[in-house]
């Protein structure tokens, strides 16, 4: 356990500069993007009011409707969700690089890692935990960012024009945020369980490639493809399976895939991996 925790801390530390940059990008991009959006919207409001001789915001609201947080966010996309897309892409790439940097970085660190005492599966668990923590870290950042962003919106948009809503309602109705941070505990756990199973499958494919090179690459790609088909498979039988069965089957298959991935990875790390 101690070695596993040390590995997790080491892995987190290795990525901190890029991570800090991603966090900074998210904060700056969303804050600046929202500020610019609202400013643009308010300019349009004033222009329209002048053009149509409206004397108050309330009159404007009656005629043209109000400005919601969602519309304020949408006007200057991709400055809002674009930063989320960059973070997601970076993490998806890092799912691969977290292994390959140990082989291809200067001073093949994988030597050192594979020689560490204790189970080599600690490497697998530590990298998996790191990916999960990094993902959740960005989710947590977004959670604490929403209230000040909404406060900025309320400050910049006059009350007569604002259409207030809670963070939870905004998240529920935004397709990107509802996927990445669903405000329903069961959904949150399910989304990230499936996500971490996917990462485990990719890790296994990577270890296959590292163990058997070209043949391993083919085997890994096949393993990933079959795993993906297995997970989405039950849904394609919607006409003969009931929703509870599809759900149960999907969860059961994901558990099976996760366990299989861990077992194969452990076996490869112990017996087949080569530097």
């Amino acid at each position, binding site marked *: 356990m101690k070695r596993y925790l040390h590995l997790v801390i080491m892995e987190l530390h290795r990525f901190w500069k890029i991570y800090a940059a991603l966090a900074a990008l998210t904060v700056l991009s969303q804050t600046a993007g929202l500020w610019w959006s609202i400013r643009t919207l308010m300019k349009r409001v004033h222009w329209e009011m002048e053009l149509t001789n409206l004397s108050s915001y309330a009159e404007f609201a009656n005629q043209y409707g109000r400005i919601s947080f969602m519309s304020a966010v949408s006007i200057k996309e991709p400055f809002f969700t674009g930063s989320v897309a960059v973070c997601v892409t970076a993490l998806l790439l890092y799912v691969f690089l977290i292994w390959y940097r140990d082989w291809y970085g200067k001073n093949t660190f994988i030597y050192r890692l594979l020689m560490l005492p204790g189970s080599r599966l600690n490497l697998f668990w530590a990298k998996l935990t790191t990916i999960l923590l990094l993902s959740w870290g960005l989710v947590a950042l977004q*959670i604490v960012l929403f209230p000040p962003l909404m406060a900025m919106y309320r400050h910049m948009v006059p009350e007569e024009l604002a259409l207030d809503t809670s963070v939870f309602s905004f998240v529920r109705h935004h397709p990107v945020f509802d996927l990445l941070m669903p*405000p329903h505990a069961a959904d949150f756990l399910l989304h990230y369980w499936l996500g971490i199973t996917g990462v485990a499958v990719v890790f296994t494919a990577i270890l296959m490639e590292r163990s058997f090179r070209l043949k391993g690459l083919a085997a890994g790609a096949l393993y990933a493809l079959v795993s993906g088909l297995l997970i989405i498979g039950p849904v394609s039988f919607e006409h003969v399976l*009931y929703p509870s069965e599809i759900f149960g089957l999907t969860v059961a298959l994901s558990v099976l895939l996760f366990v299989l991935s861990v077992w194969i990875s452990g076996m490869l790390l112990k017996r087949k991996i080569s530097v």
Partner: protein
Amino acid sequence: MKRYVISACFACFVVLAIGLFLGLASAKGLPGFRLETAAGDGKEAEALLLAGWYQNGPYAERVTIGAEGSEYESERSGYERFRAGSISVSAIPELVRLTEAYPGFMRGRTHASTLLDYYHDDEWVIRLQASLTLVIGDRMAGFHNFRIDMLDKKTGRKRSLTAPLPDVLRNRQAVVADIQKIGDKLHTALITFPWPFNGQREDAELRVYQISLQDGEVTGGEPLLLFPGGADDQVIRVGEVREPDMTAPRKYLLLKAYAPDSDDRILLYSYEQGKTHTLTLPAKSPEFSGSLQYYRDDSALVRLLFAADEIRMERYRLPGFEREREILLTPEDLRAETFQNFAWGENRLYILHDANGLPAVSALDLTDGNVIWRGVVRAESSAGELEKLGISHILIRP
């Protein structure tokens, strides 16, 4: 040491932020509403849900409200939303009941089924499927069969048999209007049209076949024109009269046939006697902007003319169509401003209206036309929330 402290703080931050987010999301839900009984037996409320929307800032949140409280679609879990949208789960109450009771037998059937394909009594669940007619180029092709699947509820055993569709149907399109089990025969009422169907009158027929459940022998099927005496180019619509449980055993089949500028015709077919009886009723007048609907059970046919300012109901006894009663209801009778919508229950008409500005629903007993229950929507938190609530229709629970 610094690294460990930072990592620990990071992990704590993640857990706290996400935990707080999920905790608050579940605690701070959207405002709750409840359907409360204002008059009559509260048990009446158990049969219904009111569906509408709540204006939550920029979002129109879909909501259903019942006696136990309200439920918002956006607050449901992903699984519940998936379940509601799944093709293997029907929205039709009768099929939902059958699926919950007999999941094995109903597997794979609900998405392609209509209620009219099913029969359900104390001993059997039966499904009939008239095969699809294949169209290749400008010809009809493919083989034609009745396929019958049966479930013996007592033993749990399933059985299937196929019976040939009579040749006379080879150039006609057939839809199942009803099936009834009488003895060891399945009486199958088909509405048939020529192919290609143009809805014109001389071609809409009713044919009732008797299929032996022992050996699949098909007998009967004399054609009965559904709209005799109409013009050649008249477009006719034919449909079944709605009843509370379309899968239940019935002594009579009731069909309605109607065409523009013509009176409505209600055709009653008695399964026991094999005879028909027609009732002609005036169509709704062009000035009438409301809806005209029919409802039946085994004792009576009800004709409903529903408008925002008036409900007119006529009750006809079966099988002879003797006019039993006429009821006229105005919003004032229910202390409402307007009637908004309605739904049929078992021997009930549920009427959606307002009551002192609150959404309300009243239940009318179809036997005697009396209002036997009234319910009102109340907000669980602040009464001001009701101003953001709009109810659009009534749902009958399975």
